[in-house]
């Protein structure tokens, strides 16, 4: 299953689907970092609104994506973690420490625009 990666100015937006397998997540990790390099993006928004389960592998992959993109000099914001998913993650002991999060896509864009002082 392909994850669409959209370019929005200096930012990239990747929208996760509900039923991503480990292989899909691995592919996305490489794809995102490559796109950041190719398009010289300043930041990436990963929208996980549609994800109904965030298990240990998915959250580790998200952390790895954020760290790889930071090494490249860009920023990552995870948006749209559903309340139930957040609850399950806490129970499982999963954290996204050191990774920026925002309520939804709109908030994520606002956060990045503020950070990079971009006015629309």
């Amino acid at each position, binding site marked *: 299953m392909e994850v669409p990666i959209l370019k929005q100015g200096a930012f990239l937006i990747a929208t996760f689907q509900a*039923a*991503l*397998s*480990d*292989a899909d997540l691995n592919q996305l990790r490489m794809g995102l970092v490559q796109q950041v390099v190719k398009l010289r993006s300043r930041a990436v928004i990963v929208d996980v609104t549609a994800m*109904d*389960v*965030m*298990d*240990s*592998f998915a959250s*580790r992959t998200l952390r790895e994506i954020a760290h790889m993109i930071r090494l490249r000099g860009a920023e990552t914001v995870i948006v749209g973690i*559903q*309340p*139930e*998913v957040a*609850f*399950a*993650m806490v*129970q*499982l*002991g*999963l954290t996204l420490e050191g990774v920026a999060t925002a309520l939804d896509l709109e908030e994520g864009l606002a956060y990045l625009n503020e950070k990079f002082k971009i006015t629309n």
Partner: protein
Amino acid sequence: MVVGEIRVAINSDQDIVAARQKGRVLASELGFSSGDATLIATAISELARNIVSYARRGEIKLSGIHGSSRIGILVIASDDGPGIVDIRQALRDGFSTSGSLGLGLPGVRRLMDEFEITSQPGKGTKVAVKKWRQ
């Protein structure tokens, strides 16, 4: 009384997704809230992941439990893999033998209401978990 057993063969990472989706559907059919269905689906995902990571193949069995006073879901993850030598250690947070985040077993135990594990080195592992409807 255990009803409507669903068996999902676990052979690849794709099957992890199938198992948790079937678990969520069954949980909803049994009347679990969407929040509880998420907890159940997450637990199934972790159990199926352990099978793929450590045993390569196994099976997840899902069934409804209709007790005299309550309704629940039973999830059994079984494999014929290497087994766990020290179960007590595997149930401690942060323990892993593969450099990963660990077996996730302590987390699965927190997500569900009842947790039972049997394992024999060289013979395999069976984890049975239950959650009761609120």
